[in-house]
Every structure is written in C-alpha cells, then in structure tokens.
C-alpha cells in the first residue's frame, strides 16, 4: 500500500460518503466543507474497512485533532505502517 493509494482511497470516500469532490489537501475540512464529528466517525469506519483491520479506541482518539486531508493521509499511513501494510517512506 503506497501513500498514493491511501490518498486515492480517502478522496474516493470523501466523494462517495461526503459528496466532497477533490478536497484541497491543507485546508481546514470543517471550515471548507462542513466536515464534522459525525463525518469523522463515518470516516474511521471507512478507514477500518480499507485497512481490513479494526482500530483501537486509542488510535481512534488520536484522530480527534485531525483537521486536513493531508493529516488524514498521514494518520492512515501511520496506522498502515504499524500493521505492516505500507511501504516505508523513502
């Protein structure tokens, strides 16, 4: 699993679940697209499906501070690395 694949999946979830097309990578998602705590919970479920692995309560709580698309991708990349399903960063 590469960072590009993670980004593509996150963008797919944003389009299909949140009707947000091509979100800007570094804008505040709440301010720009009305992405709220309800959406965040739905996104975490999507991430679990994508990784094929359940997130721990601790891992979910780490997501509370996330504000941008780039941070979401970083977050998933870290989860994937812990699970050994992502290529190490060069």
């Amino acid at each position, binding site marked *: 699993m590469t960072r590009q694949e993670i980004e593509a999946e996150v963008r797919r979830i944003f389009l299909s679940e*949140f*009707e947000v097309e091509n979100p800007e990578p570094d804008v505040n998602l709440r301010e720009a697209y009305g992405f709220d705590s309800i959406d965040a919970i739905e996104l975490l479920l999507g991430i679990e499906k994508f990784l094929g692995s359940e997130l721990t309560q601790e891992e979910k709580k780490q997501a509370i501070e996330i504000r941008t698309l780039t941070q979401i991708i970083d977050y998933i990349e870290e989860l994937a690395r812990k699970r050994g399903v992502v290529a190490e960063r060069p």
Partner: protein
Amino acid sequence: MERRVVITACSAISPIGYGRKAIVESLLNGVSGVATLREDELISRFIHSRVYGTVGYPMTYDFSRQHRKTMGPVAYYACQVAKDALEQAGLPQEFVTGGRLGIAFGSIHGSPTVQRDIYRVFFEAKDKAAYQTIGAVDYLKSMVHTTAVNISKMFGITGRIISSGTACTTASQSIGFGYEAVKYGLQDAMLCGGADEYDTITVAVFDNLLACSTSFNDRPSQTPRPFDRARDGLVVAEGAGAVMLEEYEFAKKRGATILAEVIGFACNSNGGDLILPNLEGITQTLKLGLENAKISADEVDLVSAHATATKMGDIIEAQATGEVFGAEPYVVALKSYMGHTMAACGAIETILMIYMMQEGFVAPTLNLEEVDERCAMIKHVQQVIEHPVRTAAIQNFAFGGVNTSLLIRKLT
C-alpha cells in the same frame, strides 16, 4: 402581559395532497388519500387492517448532505413543511436566526424506519461488523425531537425548542405551546407542527387493540368513516404540517399576510385510563378552550373533530361536542379524507380549517352516509357547503389521556 398571536404561513404534506391547491381540490371533490397497506417484509403480513393513509405522490427535496445525514424520513417531511412556512412567512433572515423565533415540533417516536434498522442489528447481528452498521447518526434520526432540531439546524433557528411527543396531540400541543410562548412574550414567533412517516408498527399497535379498520380492506377509500354507522376503526396515516405563529403587532408592522388569529388553547389530562376516551376530560378541555379564548360557544361556526372512527371514541366526542357547543356549529371529521396522521394531525387539521376559512366553504365528512344515532346530537356536514367560517375549534385527543382544544379566528 398577553399579546395577540396570528398565523402568517402554513404548509402540509398530506395523503390528499401537498400544498393548498391540491388539498383544497381534494376536499371539494371528496378525494380520499387512503390506499392499500404496503408490504414491509417484517410484520405487515400479520396485520389485519390492510389500509393506510399514504403520501402516494413523489416528493423531491433539495436538502444538502450536511442536513440529510441526520434526517430520517420523518425529518424530511418536517423540514420541507418548515421550509415552505418560512418562505411563505418571509421573515427577515436576521430575525430567523436572532433568537426570537423558536420551534415547537414533534413526532410520535422519531423515525421508526431508522429504529427498525437498529433492531435488525440487535436481533440479527452475528459479528462486530454488523454492530458497526449502527450509524453514528442513528440516534439523531430516531430521537423524539429529531424533527425540531433538524429544522433548527437547517435554518439556523436559535430560539427555544419545544418537542412534544404526546402521540395524537403532538402537533396540537406544538401549536398550543407555541401560541403560549408568543402570547406571554417568551418568543416573538414560533414555527409549530408535527410529522410522522410511514410506519407499520403503529398500525400493528392499533390493530392488536382491535381499533383499526378491517372491513374495507378491498375498498380503502371508503374508510375511515367517522360518525357513520358502519365505521369500524381508524386508519393510520403519514404526513406533516407546519404553521408560523407571530405576535400580531410584529406581523402587522412588517406587512405579513395574516391567515388567522389563534385566540385560545387548552390542554388537560384525563388523569386515569391511558386508552379509553373520557367524556369528562374531553368536555372539560373544550370548555377550557372557550374560556381561554374568552368567547362563548355560540361564536364557534365550525368544529374540527378528532373523530378517528373508532366505535366508542366518536360517540364520546360527539357527546362532549354537543354538550359544549350545542347543535349549531358545523362539525367536520377531516381524518375521513386521509386517516390518522398521528403526530401531524393537529397541524394538518388546523391548516385545512384555515384553507376552508380562506376559501369560504366547509368540507363534508367523507364516507359519512348514515349518521350513527348515538352521534346525532351535533351538526354533521355531508356535502360541500358554501359558508363563511369566522371562528373554528380544532380538537384532538391522544393515547395517554391527553386532550387539546385550539381556537382560531379569521381576521375581518
């Protein structure tokens, strides 16, 4: 300080149409909105009553995902009639969001469609993945105040929220409590109403109580039959209604169209049995309504009866109505057109009364072919009558022994 309260907008989604034109045409032409009960692949096959007051025409909504995500079907109905009422009232945007507009809106138990999906998980879940299908928003869609708060979110309304959930008096309490909030200066306007979505569980409840109509399963439009000798029970229905209440001087100053004035409201409890209609309790409510409006019974031209077409309920209501109002005012049972829209009925019936006031006619009670002699002490309407209505009473009674009486008057 008591302030005058007026209705400046209204909208209904009902089994006999959406909006004034369609509904008035149905009333004038005796069109019924009762259809065959839909199969739900759950319990519908066990229900003896095969009829339902159905919104059988397509509805289209333009709500954004930000709003849709916390809305079950009942909130769609509620938000649409609320949107219509807000647009029709034409209140300034800064007033809508300024805290002096509140909401009184309810449903009998949120969204049963969403609740049913949750129950499916409880009873069918084999693993954690099934458990996780309970959405983060399922409570927001199914809670009893889902209609009121989805309206507040969609339109940025920041005043008080009242969310009555008293079954068949939900909407009449919404209007009544909204009226009191404006009358006593707590708010300057209140958006009031009720809604309920298609729900077979509600039919099953009444069906098991032997209170549902079953003899007209093959002729849905011929039931319910309030006050008729052949009536055999109620028909459950879906729908929504919203009215905008405003303080009179405020409405007048901004040049709002005033549809009617709310002149009185009463609500009491039977203080006893939770199901059986109670002559004393109902009679007292109707008297309290007149007292609150400071008018005498002979000033009322038209009464909208709760009249669900149950055997005993109609008789008790006719007796109470006859005792309080006498035999002079016309009495119409509007559920005869669409069945019992539950939490919405008080609002829908109020709106239909406003339409008749505006149009200058009284609709007949549909399917009333032979008046039950035990209900004959009041003046029934069996054909369309051209008649100016100035003052009208709308009465509703609910499971739990809750009774309401609302009085409205056309401004001259």
